[in-house]
C-alpha cells in the first residue's frame, strides 16, 4: 500500500477467562481508573453487569470458518463487522477492549487480526489477557478445555481472588499454569487489582517485541518470589528445560522450547516450520521465535496462531550479542521429539 502517512493502528486487548474469574471486574477497573484514555469496549451478549462506558458494543461471538481449506482458520465474524463500524468513529477512542465469554476460544479472535486485511490494517492485537480464578482454576483445568486454552493462549495472566486461597495452594496453581504456559506474565491479584500498564499496551503480538523468550518465571523483574514447588507427588515426569529447572507437566498441554547456537538455514527452516504448522497447527496454539540465519546480519522474528505464521527481519544483530535461535511452541499433545529433531535439522 502506498500510504506514506499511514495512521497508527488502534491497539486491541482481548480479555479472556473462565466464567466468574473476574473479567468484568477487571474491565470495570480499566474503564474507571483515571488514565485519560477512551476505550471502545466489545462485550459478549451475556454480560449482565453494568459497564459504564460511552462506546460499548454487544457482540454475538460468531466464529466463522474461512473457506480456504485450512481447518482451524476461524475468525470472529462479528468482530470484523464491529471493527469496521467502530473505525468510522476513530478519533473517539484510543484503544479497543474485547471481552470474550467464559467459554470462548481466544484463537478465532486473534486470527481475525491476521486473516482480515481490513481489520489488520487498522487495528493490531496488543495482548491476550486471561483472568484466572485462584480457587477454581485447578478444577477447570481438569474438566474445561476452554479454561486450559485460555491459559495456554495468554500473554498476561491474572491469578485473581488470591485472598481466597492459601499461599501453598497459590504456589501450586502457579506451577500448574507454568506447566502449560511458561511464557506469560503472571500477576497475583485481588478483585483484579493490577497496574493497568501490566495489562494494556503490552505489544505482545508485535514482532518487534519478541525480545525475550526466557520463560517469565526466570526473569528478575517479576514482582513475586517464585519458589519452585515441585516436590508434590503428582505422578508425572518432570520436564527438564535447557536451564535445568523443573515444573509441572500438564497431561495434554505443553510448551516445547527450542534453542540453537548454530545458525539456521532459512531454506530448511521455512519449509519445516510451514509444514509443521500445516500438519500440527490444529494443536499448536501459539508459537514464537527469534532466529539467527546463516550469513544474515539481521535477527528474524516470527510468531503464529495455529496455522497462521507471521515473520519478518527485526533488526541487525548487535555487536557482542549472542547469535542464537530460540523458539517456543505451546499446544496440545505436541510431538516434542519430532519438533526438536525437525528444528535441529534446520541448522545450516
Amino acid at each position, binding site marked *: *500500500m*502506498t*500510504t*506514506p*502517512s499511514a495512521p497508527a493502528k488502534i491497539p486491541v486487548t482481548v480479555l479472556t477467562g473462565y466464567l466468574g474469574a473476574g473479567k468484568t471486574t477487571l474491565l470495570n477497573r480499566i474503564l474507571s481508573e483515571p488514565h485519560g484514555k477512551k476505550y471502545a469496549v466489545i462485550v459478549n451478549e451475556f454480560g449482565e453487569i453494568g459497564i459504564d462506558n460511552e462506546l460499548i*458494543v*454487544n457482540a*454475538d461471538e*460468531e466464529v*466463522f*470458518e*474461512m*473457506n*480456504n481449506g485450512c481447518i482451524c482458520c476461524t*475468525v470472529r*465474524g*462479528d468482530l*470484523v*463487522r*464491529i471493527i469496521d*463500524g*467502530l473505525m*468510522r*468513529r*476513530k478519533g*473517539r477512542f484510543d484503544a479497543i477492549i474485547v471481552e470474550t465469554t467464559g467459554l470462548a476460544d481466544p484463537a478465532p479472535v486473534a486470527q481475525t487480526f491476521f486473516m*482480515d*486485511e*481490513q481489520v489488520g490494517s487498522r487495528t493490531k492485537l496488543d495482548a491476550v489477557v486471561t483472568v484466572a480464578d485462584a480457587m477454581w482454576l485447578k478444577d477447570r483445568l481438569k474438566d474445561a478445555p476452554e479454561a486450559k486454552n485460555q491459559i495456554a493462549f495468554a500473554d498476561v495472566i491474572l491469578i485473581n481472588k488470591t485472598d481466597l486461597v492459601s499461599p501453598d495452594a497459590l504456589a501450586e496453581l502457579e506451577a500448574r499454569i507454568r506447566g502449560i504456559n511458561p511464557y506469560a506474565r503472571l500477576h497475583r491479584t485481588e478483585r483484579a487489582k493490577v497496574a493497568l500498564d501490566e495489562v494494556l499496551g503490552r505489544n505482545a503480538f508485535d514482532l518487534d517485541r519478541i525480545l525475550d523468550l526466557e520463560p517469565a518465571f526466570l526473569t528478575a523483574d517479576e514482582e513475586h518470589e517464585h519458589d519452585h514447588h515441585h516436590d508434590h507427588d503428582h505422578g508425572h515426569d518432570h520436564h527438564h528445560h535447557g536451564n535445568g529447572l523443573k515444573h509441572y507437566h500438564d497431561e495434554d498441554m505443553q510448551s516445547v522450547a527450542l534453542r540453537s547456537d548454530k545458525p539456521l538455514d532459512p531454506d530448511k527452516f521455512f519449509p519445516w516450520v510451514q509444514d509443521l504448522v500445516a500438519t500440527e497447527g490444529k494443536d499448536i496454539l501459539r508459537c514464537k521465535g527469534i532466529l539467527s540465519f546463516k550469513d544474515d546480519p539481521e535477527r528474524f522474528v516470527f510468531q503464529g496462531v495455529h496455522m497462521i505464521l507471521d515473520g519478518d527481519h527485526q533488526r541487525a544483530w548487535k555487536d557482542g550479542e549472542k547469535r542464537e535461535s530460540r523458539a517456543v511452541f505451546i499446544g496440545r499433545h505436541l510431538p516434542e521429539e519430532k519438533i526438536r529433531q525437525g528444528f535441529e535439522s534446520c541448522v545450516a
Partner: protein
Amino acid sequence: MGPRLRGDDSKTNGNDETEYVPDTTTQLPSLADRVRPIDAGASVVGVHFFGAMPVFVLGEEALLFAAKDGERRVAIHDGGILASACDGTRIVTGGDDGKLIATDAEAHQVLATDDKKRWIDQVALGPDGAVAWSAGKVAHVRGKKGELRSFEAPSTVAGLAFASKGFRLAIAHYNGATLWFPNAAGAKPQMLEWKGSHLGVIFSPDGKFLVTTMQESALHGWRLSDGQHMRMSGYSARVRSFGWTVDGVFLATSGSEQIILWPFDGKDGPMRRQPKMLAQSEARVAVVAGHPRQPVVAAGYADGAVLLVRIDDGAIIEARKADGQPVSALGWDASGQMLAFGTEAGSAGVLTL
C-alpha cells in the same frame, strides 16, 4: 502475488490464468482541476444524489447536503452511521444508536428503533418504497402499505438487497444467502448455500443472478434459475465495494490493484470467462461505481486517486489526484453528469462532466 482471477463453476482450479500487462501510462488526462472541493469535516462513508445535489453520509451523526449555492449539515443520528441507501428522493440510514432514519430534502424522521439499541448496520431500499434493515440476526422489511415483516437469519445479517422487480429480498449470512418473499405468507424462504461467511449481496439488474462478497477475498454467485454456483476469486483483499455497469453488462469490484469487471452479459455469467482488469495502480481499489448511462466505471483508490475508466478500451481520466487519503465513497447522479466522492479523512468533491 499477481492476479489470478477467473470465474469458475467448480471448486477445482483451472490452468487458464491470465497474465496482466501493467498499464505504463504515466501522464493521465486530468479533470481534477474542475472538481468543486468540499470539506466534509468528517470521514465520508457514503454519497448519494437528490437530483443534482450531492448528499454525503458522514461517519458520525450527520448528512452533508452539498448544493452548489451552499452546504447544509444535518445531524440525524446520535452516533456512528453504519449504512445508507437512497432511491433518489430519500436517504435511509442505520446507526449505532439503534435507529433507522429516513431523510429527504426537507426533513428527517425515525422509521424504526431497535428495542435493545443494537446497531442497525444493513439497510436497503426497494421498488415501490419498501425499506429493509437489520440488527443482529433479524431482518425487517416495511412495504409500501406500511406492513412490517421480519425474518430471523441463521446468523447475523451481513447484507441486504432488493430484487429490481417484485417484492423479494436477498439476505447474506454465514454459509449462504436467503431469498425471502416477505409477502408470500407461509412460503419458506429459499436458502442458497455456500460454505463461508457472505457479506455484501447484490442482484443482477435482470434478476437472473445473485452475487455475494465473502470474508475470503472472493465473490460467490448463483444463477437463480438452477442454483448453479459461480466462484470469482483471486483478489488481494476482501471485496468491499461492487456495482453494475450500464445495462448490467459487468459487475465492477474493488479488492485488487485494478478494477475487476466480471462479465454477466451471457446466460452463464462469468463462468469459465476471464474478468476485465482495468486501471492498474500500486494502490488497491477501495470503491467502484458504474456510470448509469455509459460503459464507464469510476474507481476510488486507497491512495486517494479517483479515476474514470472507459470499459471498451481502458482509457483513463483522472478525477482526483492521489494524496495518500483512502477514498471511501463514490457515486454518480442519475443522469451520469456528476460524480461525487469522499475520503476517510473528510475531503470530498463533485466533478461535473
